[in-house]
C-alpha cells in the first residue's frame, strides 16, 4: 500500500470545468468563422478532458507509463483521422441523391 498522495483541490477542478463549459457555450456565438469556432471548441474540450484525467482519475499522481497507456487511444485516433483524410476531401455525399439512386430514380440534375 503506497502512502496517500496529497489530494488536489477538487472544488477548484470543478470550478475550472464549469467555467470551461460556460466558455464553450459562449464560443458558439463568436464571429470567427465555422472552422475557427470548431478548433476553439476542440481545444476547450481537450483541456476539460485532461483536467478530468489528471485530477479526478489521478493520472497526475501515477507512474508516467500509465499516462502513456491512457494516451495511446488518443494517438491512434489521431492516426485514424489522418488515414481518413483522403476520404474527407473526396466527393461530397448528398443523402437525397444517394436515396434517389437506391430507389432507382434519377436525382435532379442527372441523366441529361
Amino acid at each position, binding site marked *: 500500500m503506497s502512502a496517500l498522495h496529497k489530494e488536489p483541490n477538487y*472544488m477548484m477542478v470543478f470550478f475550472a470545468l464549469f467555467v470551461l463549459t460556460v466558455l464553450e457555450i459562449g464560443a458558439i456565438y463568436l464571429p470567427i468563422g465555422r472552422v475557427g469556432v470548431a478548433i476553439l471548441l476542440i481545444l476547450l474540450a481537450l483541456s476539460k478532458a485532461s483536467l478530468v484525467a489528471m485530477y479526478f482519475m489521478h493520472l497526475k499522481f501515477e507512474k508516467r507509463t500509465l499516462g502513456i497507456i491512457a494516451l495511446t487511444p488518443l494517438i491512434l*485516433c489521431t492516426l485514424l483521422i489522418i488515414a481518413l483524410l483522403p476520404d474527407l476531401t473526396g466527393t461530397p*455525399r448528398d443523402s437525397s441523391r444517394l436515396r434517389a439512386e437506391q430507389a432507382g430514380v434519377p436525382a435532379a440534375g442527372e441523366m441529361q
Partner: protein
Amino acid sequence: MSPVSAHVHAIEPAESPLTPESWGKLGMWIFLAGDAMSFGGLLAGYGALRAGATDWPNPLEVLGINLTAFMTFLLICSSVTMVKALSAIRHGNQQRLRNFLLLTILGGLTFLGLQAYEWTHLITAQQVTFTSNPYGNYLFGTTFFVITGFHGAHVTGGVIYLSLILLNSLRGRYSAEHYSTVENAGLYWHFVDLVWILVFTFVYLIK
C-alpha cells in the same frame, strides 16, 4: 515470510509496477484504453461521414443545447461527488462514502432520465429517427442515436456498477486500508464523464 507467501511472491509481485496500489487498477486502465478506442472509432467515423456530406443539419438548430449543457454540468457534478466518495473512504469515513456514492448514482440516473426525455422529444416531436429526419442528411440521426446511445449504455452500466459498490459499502466492505474497488469504479465513472465532454463538443456544439 512463510514458505507459501514466498512461493506466491515468486510467481507474481504483489504490487503492479505501474499502479503501486493494485493490479485491479491497472486492469481498469487498460479496459478504459480499449473503451476509448471504441469511442474514438465512433467519433472519427462520425467526423468522416459528416465531413463528406453536403446536407448535414446544424446541430445547434436541431438539438436542445441548453438541456445538454445542463446534462454536461450534471455529469461534472457527479464526477466531483465520486471523487469525494473515494476521498471519504481513504480517510475511513464510511457514512460520507455512502452519501457521496448515493449522490453520484442520483446524478447518473437524472442524466439518463434527461437523455430519455431528449430522445423521446427528438423521435416524436421532431421526427428524427435512425433512418430519416426533416432537417437533412439521414446519417445525422443514425450517428446521433448510435453515439449518444453507446454513451448512455455506459452511464447505465456505471449506475449499476456504483449501485453494487454502494451495496457493498452498506455491508462495510471498504475501509481506509481497502478502497481499491471504490477507486476502480470511480475511474470508470470519470471516464464516462470525460467521454461525454468530447461527445458534447463533437455532436452538439460544432456546427
